[in-house]
């Protein structure tokens, strides 16, 4: 058997984005030893890219905001598939978590009264996004990183975990390889927190980095945990479109929050077309451009423009405009914020200004941007208990983008940065409690050895396919078959391709050694993206309705029957089962909050 090192700690946290770091803080504050593992250097996780802000109903802007409104907005945005208890905890605790960040050292933008400034975002009734210009994620991750590091956990940077290890039913550790040296490490821990983020890399155009291959969700599934609502993949309405090198990069929703407007090739602000505002949002949005313009300066007396509808609605509208032949030069739509003036734009959207200036040769203070929807976020994920973030496997916890249940069928912008704070902490605390009373499990060398063999196979093969090429084929297939508009035929063809690639991945071959070898790393990542792609497509086939991010043009509209069910995926052997589960029930208090809206 290949040699491997063993590292033993009370708790293992996989992932050092916001969720993993917040969990680490909780574990260390509970006085337990903690190993935190991440694929990149510390501070480079996806969280660093978040731009617009973190939603929490602080109510600093003179509007009557509170957690109840935040709860209702989130349920409405998620088209009611959300787990109400998760949303309740989220909306309540978000406030405290954001204020705590400020104590840790985060420096948010200020109101004239010296409080944290909040900006409007799609689907949020009031100004609720606590922000730092358009680099909120950087502020958040650096703050958490500094705080976590001051508590001295053991950080394993540039390590990839590839399999969870079990002692009977219980998760007791994980196997990882060191990306720099290629050495293997078996982590032993009394509890494991998965905080590995989302998965966008199976699509061709995405705002996600190479890290977003869904490792955590795939590993949890393979260990026996359940995945929830996996068909719900968010297409962010505004990704960069031109030049080709930047296609898919995110254009933050803050551009629209700060007054940016969407126009088609005829100069029309098409979001005002009544057909683009769904029933449940009627009457809540401006109906004329004048009214929308008034809202910029007077939020109390004007309704917000329909550019700020939830992301699923805006993405679909853009898609339909382009399909109807009203697209821009490169097949997108125009987003224009130039009317806000150069000074204002440079101050409130500095990194967007820089991004377009440096990468797209566009001056957004004078010219419109060309945009098109891009794969951005995954609402679905590991199924967890609302209060403790425990999965169906003892000893295994999940938090952040890799967990499901909070966002339902569509996430509101800004809700993820607070998600990772609220549930990162809860997962860390619950894992610490579990670990305090548990013993280390037994380490079974069988699975360790099997995983090392799997990892090494592409290196010892003498001929075979290139993993980068297979990854590109997968991206093409998912982009074609499992994008914004989905049909039975398209999804079925996509599934066939995915299954065929799952066979071909057994025959990939790579050159070189294990030390910092991107080709070798890509070969293992591919197994994760294929696994997750299969789940996405099978769930999308199963849900025969349109809701949130799932738009089945062969089954248009909500189906009340489907509105009562979540989809759950689990493995039996190597066979994937997709089954429905009734939505969790809502407490009377939460029901009354929902009814206040009517």
């Amino acid at each position: 058997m290949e040699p491997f090192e063993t590292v033993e700690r009370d708790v293992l946290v996989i992932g050092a984005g916001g969720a993993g770091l917040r969990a680490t803080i909780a574990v260390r504050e509970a006085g337990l030893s903690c190993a935190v593992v991440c694929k990149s250097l510390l501070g480079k996780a996806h969280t660093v890219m978040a731009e617009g802000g973190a939603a929490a109903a602080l109510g600093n802007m003179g509007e009557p905001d509170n957690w109840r409104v935040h709860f209702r907005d989130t349920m409405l945005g998620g088209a009611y598939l959300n787990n109400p208890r998760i949303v309740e905890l989220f909306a309540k605790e978000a406030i405290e978590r954001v204020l705590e960040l400020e104590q840790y050292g985060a420096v948010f933008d200020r109101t004239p009264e010296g409080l944290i400034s909040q900006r409007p975002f799609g689907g949020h009734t009031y100004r609720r996004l606590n922000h730092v210009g358009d680099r909120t994620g950087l502020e958040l991750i650096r703050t958490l990183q500094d705080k976590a590091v001051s508590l001295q956990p053991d950080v394993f940077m540039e390590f990839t975990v590839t399999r969870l290890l079990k002692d009977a039913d219980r998760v007791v550790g994980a196997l990882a390889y060191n990306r720099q040296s290629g050495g293997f490490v078996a982590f032993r821990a009394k509890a494991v927190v998965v905080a590995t983020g989302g998965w966008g890399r199976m699509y061709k155009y995405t705002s996600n980095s190479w890290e977003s291959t869904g490792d955590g969700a795939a590993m949890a599934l393979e260990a026996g945990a359940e995945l929830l609502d996996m068909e719900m993949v968010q297409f962010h309405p505004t990704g960069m479109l031109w030049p080709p090198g930047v296609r898919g990069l995110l254009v933050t929703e803050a551009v629209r929050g700060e007054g940016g407007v969407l126009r088609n090739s005829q100069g029309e602000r098409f979001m005002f077309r009544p057909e683009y505002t769904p029933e449940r949002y009627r009457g809540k949005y401006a109906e004329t451009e004048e009214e929308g313009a008034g809202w910029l300066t007077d939020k109390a007396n004007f309704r917000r423009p329909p550019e700020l509808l939830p992301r699923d609605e805006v993405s679909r509208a853009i898609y339909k405009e382009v399909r109807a032949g009203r697209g821009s030069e490169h097949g997108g739509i125009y987003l224009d914020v130039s009317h806000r003036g150069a000074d204002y734009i440079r101050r409130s959207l500095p990194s967007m200004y820089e991004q377009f200036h440096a990468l797209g040769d566009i001056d957004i203070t004078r010219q419109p941007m060309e945009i098109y929807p891009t794969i951005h976020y995954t609402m679905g994920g590991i199924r967890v208990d609302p209060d403790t973030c425990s999965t169906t496997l003892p000893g295994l916890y999940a938090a952040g983008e890799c967990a499901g249940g909070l966002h339902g069928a569509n996430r509101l912008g800004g809700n993820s940065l607070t998600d990772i704070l609220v549930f990162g902490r809860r997962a860390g605390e619950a894992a610490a409690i579990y670990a305090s009373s548990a013993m280390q499990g037994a380490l079974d060398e069988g699975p360790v050895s099997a995983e090392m063999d799997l990892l090494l196979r592409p290196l010892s093969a003498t001929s075979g396919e290139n993993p980068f090429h297979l990854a590109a084929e997968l991206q093409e297939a998912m982009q074609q078959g499992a994008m914004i508009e989905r049909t039975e035929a398209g999804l079925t063809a996509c599934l066939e391709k995915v299954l065929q690639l799952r066979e071909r991945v057994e025959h990939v071959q790579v050159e070189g050694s294990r030390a910092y070898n991107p080709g070798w790393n890509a070969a293992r990542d591919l197994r994760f993206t294929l696994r997750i792609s299969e789940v996405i497509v099978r769930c999308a086939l199963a849900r025969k309705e349109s809701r949130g991010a799932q738009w089945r043009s062969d089954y248009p509209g909500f189906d009340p029957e489907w509105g009562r069910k979540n989809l759950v995926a689990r493995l039996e052997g190597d066979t994937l089962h997709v089954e429905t589960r009734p939505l969790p029930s809502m407490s009377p208090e939460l029901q009354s909050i929902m009814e206040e809206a009517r």
Partner: protein
Amino acid sequence: MLETIRLRVFRGDASGGEEREYPVRTFPGMVVLDAIHQIQGEQDGTLACRWNCKAAKCGSCSAEINGHPALMCKSRVEQFYDAAGLIRVSPLKTFPLIKDLVTDVSWNYRKAQQIPPLTVAADAPRPFRMMQGDVDRIQEFRKCIECFLCQDICHVLRDHGRKDAYFGPRFMIKIASLDMHPMDDLERRPHLMRAAGVGYCNVNKCCQEVCPEHIHITDNGIIPLKERVADEFYDPIRGLLRMLGLGRSRRQPMPEEAFTAPPEPAAERKPSP
């Protein structure tokens, strides 16, 4: 733009290496990182580099392009190739090489750990009330994406190898962002002068020129820090007061030992070629 260009990339590890040349097809808007990815995908999957955001937001893809420290994801190829269509890409020189374009930047993480976090007075009112005007300065420093390009160019670290004595520009502005925080209550000057070594900087501003976030590292960060240190340590009147036990800082003293690491060897592993 040329249809094909040539990328001459350093290949090797701590035991040595050489430049190797790869032909690359261009497309509109192409950046150097795209070219590296094309090589990985089509010619050599073992070529190592770091990247994450591809949007100049994470600070992972630092390298030296034609000898100049830069982010590969923000460097458009047409701004770098010469008349022969050639671009040279090499790893950061100031840090030990791991492989190809990847260097061991862990020294920076150790320095970060030696900076005490924000320390708020126990009786400070919460939540904080801070005016935008009071945080503008530190928000500039907090834009830092930790690309370590400034650390790479700083001659104290690069040419004199004084990683044992000076934390480097990145951590000067980190200390500045804490020291100038309206709610911070820690006396940071002794630490700044001794462990962090602010005196080593000779204010030639090279760091500021390479910063992709356009942070005025020297002008707004290091120079004011130097002035504060000078006030505290070299002002004769203050010195007298201090001797008499008067005129002490109103801030909390820092338990400096807690943040002094075992000394760094002046030169750690072999620097990158």
